[in-house]
Structures are given as C-alpha cells and as structure tokens.
C-alpha cells in the first residue's frame, strides 16, 4: 500500500476519528459523508460532523487466525474481533495483551495504539488501533476526549512513535 494511501487515514486509524449525523444522531466509524440511517438520506448531506470514539467497547465476536493476512504472518495465531464500542459503531481489530484462549464474547476491551504490520524490511510500517482487555488497562486510550469535535477543527493527527 502506498504511503499516501495509509497516511491519509491516520486521523481515523490513530485517533478513532469518526462522524456523527446531526439529523438523527447516529455515530459512524470510519466517518461517512452521508447518513445511511436517515429516512431521506439527502437530508444528512453536509450535516455530518466529526466525532471521536473513546475506544471503549466489548467483544461481540472473535476468531483466532492461523492463516494470516498479508503482513501479519509473524503474528499467528492472532485474534481478530468485532468490538461494539460504547458509542455504537462496531470495529474490526486485533485483540492483544491476552492469550487467544482467553478471549470471550462479552470481554470488555479498550483501543490501544500499536504497530499493525510492516511492508517488508524496507517498507512502510502501518500503525493503528488494536484492542486490549480493559480490566488490565493494558491499553492506553488512543487520543484525548470523546464526543463531537467542532466541524471547523480537524481531529488531531498523531505521529507514529519513532
């Protein structure tokens, strides 16, 4: 994947920047420019505002992956889960800081900022969110506050740690 293609998603992948429909109140991640839930979806055009997720959620399904996705070969077996966030959206991500056998439906998790994969020895390193059990507070919240970000203010952009 090209540098630009990954870089342009950093507000979402580093900071969980989503969006919220000001017409019906539904929260989306990744952000959307049109609300699929509004009965007249044209009403929502230009009424979607940035909204940041807290990163807190619960595992609602999971799988232990043995046949890895590209770039994840060194991590097998690894857990990929569907996480229902407290704000509503469901996210797909790895669950770490716990043995695969310890993951259960209902496990409370929190988003944590991690290296996702690297493109070979000389390629780009991709960073983003994974999830860790919340009780062990193994996960640091990816970014500051929760809630609606004023439309004029772009979500803060993290730099990848050196």
């Amino acid at each position: 994947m090209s540098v630009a293609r990954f870089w342009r998603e950093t507000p979402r992948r580093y900071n969980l920047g989503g969006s919220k429909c000001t017409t019906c109140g539904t929260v989306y991640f990744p952000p959307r420019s049109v609300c699929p839930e509004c009965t007249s979806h044209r009403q929502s055009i230009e009424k979607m505002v940035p909204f940041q997720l807290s990163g807190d959620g619960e595992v609602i399904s999971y799988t232990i992956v043995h046949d890895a996705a590209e770039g994840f070969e060194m991590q097998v077996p690894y857990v990929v889960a569907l996480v229902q966030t407290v704000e509503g959206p469901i996210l797909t991500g790895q669950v770490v800081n716990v043995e695969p056998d310890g993951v259960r439906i209902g496990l409370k998790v929190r988003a944590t900022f991690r290296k996702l994969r690297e493109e070979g020895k000389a390629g780009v390193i991709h960073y983003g969110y994974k999830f860790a059990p919340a009780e062990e507070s193994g996960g640091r919240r990816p970014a500051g506050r929760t809630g609606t970000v004023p439309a004029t203010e772009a979500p803060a952009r993290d730099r990848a740690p050196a």
Partner: protein
Amino acid sequence: MREVAVLGVGQTRFGELWDRSFREIGIEAGLQALVDAKLSSAQLGGLFLGNMASGSLLDQEQIAPLILDYAGLARRHLPAVRVEGGGASGALALHAGYLAVASGLYDYVVVGGAEKLTDVPDATANQITSATADHEWEVVFGATLPALWALIARRHMHLYGTTREQLASVAVQAHAMGSKNPNAHYRNKLTLEQVVGAGPVAEPLGVFDCAPLSDGAAAVVLGPLETARRHTDTPIRLAASQVACDTMAVQHRHDLTALASTREAAVRAFAQARRAPADVQVAEVHDAYTISALLSLEDLGFVEKGRSGPAFAAGEFGGSGRLTVNPSGGLKAQGRPFGAVGVAQVVELVRQLRGEAKDRQVSGATLGLAQDVGGTGATSVVTLLERAN
C-alpha cells in the same frame, strides 16, 4: 421486457488446471455452450464475462475482448463486456446478459464466467480474494475472507447454539455430492471427524470448512423464450434474475448473522417469478464456507433463522427432503473459480431441470434457485430457473 431462456450450457473441469491457460478454459466453456444451443456465431449479439481479478492474478485486463478474439469472433466486432462483483461476478454477468436479451437490444448472448487462481501462490491468491472484503477497515486490521466468515460463524453459534459439527456437516454433504460430479475439483468423501479435526484457518473454521482455490470456466447461451424451441427441446426459462447489495464490511451490518443482500435478492426474485421458497426443489447456494451455506439457506427463506445448523446436520437438504442443496458439490467440492461460480451454478441447474444430471439427478425438479455472493455479502445475486412446458 420479454421472457428469456437458457438455450445451451458449457463448463470445464474445475481444479488445478496447470496445463491450461485462461483463454483456453474460457473458450472451451463458451464453445460448448454455443454447440449445445445449436447456435451459429452469426446469430450471436455479444458476450458478457464474469471475472473477479484477472488483473491481479494474470496481469491481464480487457479479458472480454481477449476471449472473444480467441473464440474467433473478433472479425465480427461483437460487443464483449467484463462484469465484476467479487465472488458474485459470474451471476452478475448473467444478470447483465439477461437484461440485454430481455430488453430486446440483443437476441442471443453468451454469458461466461472464468477465473484462474492457481497460476499464483496460494498466499497471493488468498490476498487477492480477500480484496473482496473492505481492504481499508477489515483487511488492514488483520482480517481475511475466512476470518470474517469465522466472525459471523462465532456469532451465529453464540446466538443460536449452532455447533461445530453442524457446520462440518455442510462440508461432508458437499463432498458426497461432489463425488458424483466428473467436473468437480474434489471427488473424495469426507467424514465429520476429518472436517472437525482439520487444521484451523480462522477458528472456528478449519481447512475443510473453506472452499478451495480453483481454476475453471462455465458458460451459458441466453436467448428469447419465444424462439427457444428452435434451439433445444428443453428450454429453461430464466424466471427471475435479481441483484441486491449491502454494506461492504461485516462490521456495518445491522444483523451480523444475516445476509441482507441475499434476503432482498430472494424476496425480489420470488416476487418476479410469482413463486415461493417451498416451490424450489433444487438449489445451488454459496457454500464458500460452511457458515455461508447455513446463512444462505436461512436468508433465502428455506429454513427459519437460526435453525439451519440442526436442519442441515439432520440431512434435510441432502436429497431426502423437498429441497436438495448443491448437487454439483457446491463451491466446497466442485470448486471455487470465483468469477466462474455463478455461471457454473446455473449450468448445474439447467442440467438438473433438463433431467441430464445423471448420477446426481434430483428427480422431478422443475424449479431451481442459484445464489451467488461477493465477499461477505456486499453483493448477492439470486436466479430462478424453471423448466418451460
């Protein structure tokens, strides 16, 4: 809109066809279908070709004119169109061909589906097929196509009590059916223990829960029903062809254990044909993963939501009940050349409805259903075929 019939069918063997090129298999299936339809190429209006990923798999785009060319039809300058919808590419091409004939713009068209997955290493093929999921918000985070279906499976087990053995029973039946199909990639039988005990791919799914990567091609000739008897004694009417779409990513579904696109396409197809699920005797459904077959049977309306596991394990879809599922062996045993699958499903149903399916004939079948799915259900195509009297 006029009525459309299938006049001829053709299909290559599915499997690791290392000695055969993409263009060879594409042409073989297409020419078989033309001969079967007793159609001269002068009557042909065009070609619609379903294919998922020739660019990534073969470094070859513009494959519709390529196949047309090597079928000897380039000098006629016929229109040739490639159609892509992930794993549903074949049935989408059929839909395009159906629209072309039904509209009256073309009289006769060939609809083909072809894919060559074994010219690249398995890891590369898996990466390319996983591109039918949402790359940016699923694959980048470590998900693969089987991993996403495994997430659906785990949720289905959690909500409805579906068991590992019930999932495995889908693969066991597929191989039993495939053992009777000379075109099948796999003709060996499997036991429940073998499926459950196989190496894991994405738990709870193992190697035998997943359809193979196959090469293969299939083709049909479509034409107006009113002139169909000039070409065949047993015209098969395309009673419905319906496409429905859904969110790209599993995470955005309202119901994680439902294929809403399949449900919608089926509702529209049954409405178009003025028939109901209970009228169908034979169906070819999307068993790319054992869980995808179970979800499909529920959302097509053949079994109540959540009841597919026990029903399948009890053998209700194995030939003893009112509906036989995947007599071809399905994607699991007949094979999974992505873009060819949807067309091959129709080829099998036509053979069943004509009464030409030999060892695997479903007796007395008059109405058949095919369901083709792209990715984890962003695209579904449901086709109803009926023996015309």
